[in-house]
């Protein structure tokens, strides 16, 4: 049960859930939740390969940087969402059409 495949399946499910959130939701903050799920799936994969395939800790360092980047991404993304809300008074993704025309 506790094998590489177990962790890979969990991380795959996390990735699928994140993608589903990103596709199905129309709320920008909810989409950012999906991004967090996807980044976590990636970080989990790194840690799992470190444990089961090669034992050097480079994978852990990579996971740590993924966590760092996820935090930075959330900060900037949410700032953009807040600014968007201040201008448009909505956080519906379909209203973000300024650049479309």
């Amino acid at each position, binding site marked *: 049960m506790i094998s590489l495949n177990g962790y890979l399946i969990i991380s795959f499910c996390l990735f699928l859930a994140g993608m589903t959130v990103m596709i199905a939701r129309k709320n920008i903050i909810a989409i950012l939740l999906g991004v967090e799920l996807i980044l976590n799936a990636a970080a989990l994969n790194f840690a799992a390969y470190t444990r089961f395939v090669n034992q050097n800790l480079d994978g852990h360092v990579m996971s740590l940087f993924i966590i760092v980047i996820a935090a930075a991404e959330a900060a900037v993304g*949410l700032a953009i969402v807040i600014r968007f809300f201040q201008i448009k008074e909505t956080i519906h993704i379909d209203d973000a059409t300024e650049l479309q025309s």
Partner: protein
Amino acid sequence: MSSHNLDVYMPVLILMAFAAIMVLGALLVGKLIRPHNPTELKVTPYECGEEPIGSAWSNFNVRFYVVALIFIIFDVEGALMFPVATVFKRFVEIGQGGAILGSFLLFISVLVLGVVYCWKKGDLDWVKSYQVSTDYNEKKDK
């Protein structure tokens, strides 16, 4: 660096379970003995006798977000600095402390740069919105 098994995490799970059992158990036990007769007035949110107007879930001032933003940057920097801080003493003992100190200080100084920027721009001032409103009044007076 001794090895260990995962039993060290056992108390963590046990304590979390205890906390959950305490909360849920006390609420369930209380359900048997406590009275339950809600009236319309009783379940209105308390606003010192006034009738509440609208929902409380409205939007808030953005300065809360800026504080949380600076916090999360510090939080992440802490997560990166903790492992380095752990090995710093060992490097000092083998006489290579200078290089580690340099990289550590570089890291902190970049962090300080961000804080100084926010300080100069007034993001750390809680009452910034008041200044905006006084400016507005001055403009109106002219």
